[in-house]
C-alpha cells in the first residue's frame, strides 16, 4: 500500500503530527474536514493532547495496515492489539473517550464503551460507588448525591 498524500495534524499543545491520508481519514471528523477542503495546511485538533493523539494515530495505523481479510491470525492480532490498547490507566482511558467522541472513530468508541462497561459489570452498587469515587471522571456524579446515597443506605 503506498501512501500518496500526507496530512498535518496540530494538537492542543501546538505540536504537529504528519500522518498519511489513509490513516488520517479513519476518524470521521477528520475525514469530513478533508472532504470539505479545510485541510490544506494543517488540521487543528484543539481538544486532543499529544499523548492521546499519538495513541489514536497508532491505533488508526494499525487498523489501516492490517489487511481487511478474514484471516484468523490477522484478526487475532488486531484483537490482542485492541486489548492492550484499552489496558491503559483510567485517566488515559477517560481522555481517550473524549478524544474518540470528538474524532468519531466508531470502532474505537465501541471498544472503549465496552471496556468501561466491563469495568462496571458485575460490581455491586457499593463497589461501583467506590470505583466512581476513585475515578470521579467516568462518573460525573455529585458528591452530595453520593452522601445522600450513603445515608439512605445506613438508615
Amino acid at each position: 500500500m503506498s501512501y500518496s498524500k500526507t496530512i498535518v495534524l496540530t494538537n492542543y499543545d501546538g505540536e504537529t503530527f504528519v500522518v498519511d491520508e489513509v490513516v488520517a481519514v479513519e476518524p470521521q471528523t477528520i475525514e469530513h474536514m478533508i472532504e470539505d477542503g479545510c485541510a490544506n495546511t494543517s488540521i487543528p485538533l484543539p481538544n486532543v493532547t499529544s499523548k492521546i493523539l499519538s495513541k489514536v494515530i497508532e491505533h488508526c495505523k494499525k487498523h489501516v495496515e492490517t489487511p481487511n481479510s478474514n484471516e484468523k491470525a490477522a484478526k487475532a492480532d488486531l484483537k490482542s492489539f485492541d486489548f492492550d490498547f484499552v489496558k491503559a490507566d483510567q485517566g488515559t482511558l477517560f481522555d481517550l473517550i473524549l478524544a474518540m467522541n470528538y474524532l468519531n472513530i466508531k470502532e474505537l468508541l465501541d471498544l472503549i464503551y465496552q471496556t468501561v462497561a466491563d469495568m462496571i459489570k458485575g460490581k455491586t452498587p457499593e463497589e461501583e460507588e467506590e470505583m466512581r469515587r476513585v475515578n470521579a471522571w467516568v462518573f460525573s456524579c455529585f458528591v452530595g448525591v453520593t452522601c445522600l446515597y450513603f445515608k439512605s443506605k445506613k438508615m
Partner: protein
Amino acid sequence: MQQLDETSVETDTCTNLLECKMISERRRGKTSHQEPELSNVSKRLVRTISQKSKNNYHENVMDDDDDGVSLRCLSLYTRGGGCKVGAATSDDFTEVVGPVRGTQDTTVDCFSYGVERFWKRNNKKKISQVPESHQNEAMQVFLPDDILEMCLMRLPITSLMNARLVCKKWRALTTSTRFMQMRREGNYPTPWLFLFGTVKDGFSSREIYAFDVSFNKWHKIESEILKGRFLFSVASVHENVFVVGGCSSSGGMDRKTHRGVLAFSPVIKSWQKVASMRHARSKPVLGVYEVESDCLTIKSQPRTRRIGGVSDVYEDPHRFSIRRVPRNEKSKHTSVKNSGRFLIIAVGGVGSWDEPLDSCEVYDSSSNKWTEIQRVPVDFGVACSAIVCNGSLYVYSETDKLAAYDIVRGFWVRVEMSLPVRPRVQEYAPKLVSCDEQRLFMVSVSWCEGGGEIGRRNKAVRKVWELDLVHGSCKEVSVHPDAPMDWNAVFVGDKKKLIFGVEMFKIFGQVLEFLTMCDVSDPKMKWVHVSKNEVGREMEPSSCAMKSMAVVHL
C-alpha cells in the same frame, strides 16, 4: 439541667459528709421538705468546687479523701473527660448515680466518636478525590452524558440494575424509555431462560427459575401468584412473559381450569393481570405475533354452531373490532412504539371438563381483548406445538399434521409437507421452533437407523429438522447429543439465532436438568451444554411433566 443537678448532688456529697447523708436520704424520698434549700446550697458549692478543682486539682483530692473515688471522678468530669462513675464505691450512690451517669456518658461518647469518624471518613473521601478531580477538573465539567449512556447501555441487566442503585442521575439516565430502546436496538440485551411450573413438596412451587445465559447463573424468583397453579402455558413477548390459562386445585380433588392470563415482567418482578380468555384452557399451545403494521385486523370466527356461546348479535360488533380501533388509540400506540402491538394466539388445550379443545382465540395487546378465531381444521388432531413464523402461525398436531393460520387473512390452511419419513417415537411430541422469525425448525425424536431390536431407548435420537416452507420440504440439520430422556423437553427459539432446550428427568432417584443451546447461524448447528444439574435436585419428579420455559432478552 438534669445533668447539672446530678453533678451538683455529687459534688455536694463529696465535699460535705453531712450534706451527703441528707441528700442520700432525700434520694430515698425521706426528707423531701428540705429539697429546695439543699439544692441551692449544693449549686453554690458546685461552683466553688469546680473553681477550686480548676485551680488546683491535687488539693481537691487531698481535701476529701473520705470519698476519694467519686471525687476523683468528679474532678475528671469537670475537666471534661468521660468519667466512669460506675467506679464509685460509696454504697449510697452507686445505685442512683451509677446508671444515670453511665448511660449519659456512653451516649455522649458514642455520638462524639461517631461524628468524629463520620467526619474523618468524609475528609478522607475529599482528600482522596482531590488529586484526581483536580487533574480532570476541566473535563468533569462537561463530561457528556451520552458517553456515560453508551457505556451503561452495554451492561447486562443485572449490572444495570446495580448501576441504577448507584445514584439518582444514573437511575434517571438508565430508566428512560429512550435508553432502554437504544439498548434493545444495539442488541445488548442477553438471553434469559425462565423455567416455570416446577413442583416442590407436592405442590406447584411459586418459584420461577431464571437462568442468565451470559453469566451462566441461576436465579430464583418468588412469585406468590403462581402458587398452586399448574399446566399453564407461557409465551414471551418483548420483555414480558405471559402465563396463559392453567389449572389450580384448591385442596382435595377439585380442580379449576383458568381463563385468566397474567403478564410477568421480570425486570421489575411484577405481575399484571390482562384480559381473560373466552374459554378456560390448560396447556394451550401459544404463538406470539408481533404486529408491524397498524392496520392489521383480526378476523373473528365465522359463525359456527356453538352451545351456550355469545349470540350473533353480540358477537357481530367484535368481528371487525380491530379494524375499528379508534384512531386516537392507534396514535397513542405508535407513540409508545417500544411496547409494540402484539398478538398471542392460543390454540386448543384442555377445557374445564378435561375435554380437548379445538377452538382458538387471539389476544390483541392494543385492545386488551381476546377474540375467537376459526377453529383448527377438522380431523387435525390435538395440537401439540405452535410457533409464529413469517406471519403465519404453524401448528403441529400429534397426528403429524401441520397447519398454518394466516393471521392477516384469518383462515387455516393445511400445509402439505414431506415430513420426516422415519417414524418418530410417539411419546415425544415434536416441537416447532422458530428463529429469527424466518426459519422454522422442528425438534422431534425418531428411531435411529438399524432398527430397534436392542435397547429401544438407546436407539432413539432427537433431531432438528428445518422446514422449507417454500418448497414444502424438510431436511435434517442437527442431532441433539443427549439421549432423549424427557418426553416433555422444551425447545424455544429466540428472536436472534439461538435455540434453547431444557430436558428434565428423574434418574437414580434424582431429578436432573440439562440446558442446551444451539446456534442456528452456524452451519454446523452444534449443541452445547450451558447448564447441568444446578437446580433440578430441588424439584420433584413431576416437575418434568409440568415445566414450561420462556426465553426473554433482558
